[in-house]
């Protein structure tokens, strides 16, 4: 099953096979409470033991990028969790799946979040998403336990601990202590994770695992952008080969490159056999991240695309940690030197190595992975630039803001 929500001309969605998270969105713009119940069925009752058992058996992992097992987060919570935070900030530039869910199927996300049994805060970045979630909260009989918070947060501000800090009135930056939010009684997870939880509770772990892979059951949402005829949000069984997804999205027959996992992900050759699962992405040398898939065709200067994105990532540093504050601009300069034909890539790889693991959050690590994978993949491009350039414009197919 593949479901795709197209971004243009009007936002719509589609799925490979029967959709789960995107169910009902082929005909409806937004599922209100009544439509939600008609499409998904009644909200299943649950208790903490049942919830944990279902999440563990369903092997549900966080869909914000890190892929942390939700069961481990639940086990780390106190008996009476203090708060549930739905992370809908979605700071990754190419990602649209969480906004799409919250705007068009908000009750599915709320079902999952409210099932945990603590007051729910849905954190979003824009008023349009906030409005539709507020409307959904007003429609629900159990809506008194949920509220919406609108945060001004960049890429780093969407990191779980930075989010909790911002919700408590602090700066939207990761704290120095590497204390997970669960230790303070809060469950923080991505909007899609809670929608997946709602689906899992309705289906039960056995039926939930009827699609996906043995180790990663179920479906996942992707956001596909770049040089494709049908960009948008797509729901796929975990493990679907890249080739099927590219064909469904209307990618060119021979893309120049793909970026899997967004701007904290990796540049990869567009091998159609890459399995779109966490394991499959890792085997290909990348990461699924939050499910962003960018396609670059032969018309754009890939090295220039890499340089624009690296410069943007350097600017997203929270400026708290020296290696990130100074290392990421140096890394961006290294890539600019590649575009100018003044370098062979060794400087960039060394700076990428140097910043890895040297910050309060994973922003330097993700940026280093993104740049280093690009430098390795684009060796031929680097040679062309040293020999005078590739002669192509930078079309910003990667979607750097």
């Amino acid at each position, binding site marked *: 099953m593949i479901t795709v929500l197209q971004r243009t001309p009007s936002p719509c969605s589609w799925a490979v096979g029967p959709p789960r998270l995107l169910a009902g969105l082929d005909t409806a713009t937004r599922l209100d409470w009544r439509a939600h119940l008609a499409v998904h069925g009644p909200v299943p009752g649950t208790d903490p033991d049942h919830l944990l058992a279902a999440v563990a058996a369903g092997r549900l992992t966080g869909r914000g990028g890190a892929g942390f097992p939700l069961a481990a987060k639940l086990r780390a919570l106190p008996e009476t969790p203090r708060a549930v935070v739905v992370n809908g900030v979605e700071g990754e530039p190419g990602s649209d799946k969480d906004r799409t869910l919250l705007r068009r199927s908000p009750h599915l996300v709320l079902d999952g979040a409210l099932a945990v049994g603590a007051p729910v805060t849905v954190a979003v970045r824009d008023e349009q998403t906030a409005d539709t979630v507020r409307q959904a909260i007003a429609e629900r009989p159990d809506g008194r336990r949920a509220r919406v918070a609108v945060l001004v947060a960049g890429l780093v501000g969407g990191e779980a601990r930075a989010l909790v800090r911002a919700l408590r009135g602090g700066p939207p930056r990761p704290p120095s202590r590497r204390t997970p939010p669960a230790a303070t009684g809060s469950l923080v997870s991505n909007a899609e994770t809670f929608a997946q939880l709602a689906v899992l509770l309705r289906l039960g772990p056995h039926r939930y695992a009827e699609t996906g892979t043995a180790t990663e059951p179920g479906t996942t949402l992707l956001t596909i952008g770049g040089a494709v005829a049908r960009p948008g949000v797509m729901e796929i069984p975990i493990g679907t080969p890249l080739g099927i997804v590219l064909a469904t999205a209307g990618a060119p027959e021979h893309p120049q490159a793909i970026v899997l996992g967004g701007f904290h992900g990796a540049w990869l050759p567009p091998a159609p056999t890459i399995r779109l699962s966490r394991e499959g992405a890792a085997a290909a040398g990348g990461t699924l991240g939050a499910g962003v898939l960018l396609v670059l065709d032969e018309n754009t200067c890939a090295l220039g695309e890499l340089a624009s994105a690296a410069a943007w990532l350097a600017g997203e540093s929270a400026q708290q*940690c*020296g290696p990130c504050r100074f290392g990421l601009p140096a890394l961006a300069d290294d890539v600019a030197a590649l575009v100018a034909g003044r370098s062979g890539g060794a400087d960039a790889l060394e700076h990428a190595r140097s910043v890895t693991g040297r*910050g309060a959050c994973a922003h330097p690590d993700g940026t280093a992975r993104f740049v280093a994978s690009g430098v390795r993949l684009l060796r031929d491009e680097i040679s062309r630039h040293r020999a005078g350039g590739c002669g192509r414009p930078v079309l910003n197919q990667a979607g750097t803001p």
Partner: protein
Amino acid sequence: MTPHTDRNRPGAEAPARLAVDWTRCDGHGLCAALLPDRIVRDEWGYPDLRDPDVGPDARRAVRTAVAACPALALRLETSVTTARSST
């Protein structure tokens, strides 16, 4: 002597790791001067840990460096506190 000794004192055999609180570190460089075989400074002066695992023999020297850090950024960690989350 130092206020950090008790807090950082591990069980006798507990594995310990040197860690930097990067939000505090200003790159003063005392740690690299005191532990030249473990810590080198990068081009901006920030410590680059080459050997973060601290065995029992090295505890004393490492604690001295931890206590000397003017930004209180250098730490000797004895429990699994390095997990990161990013949702």
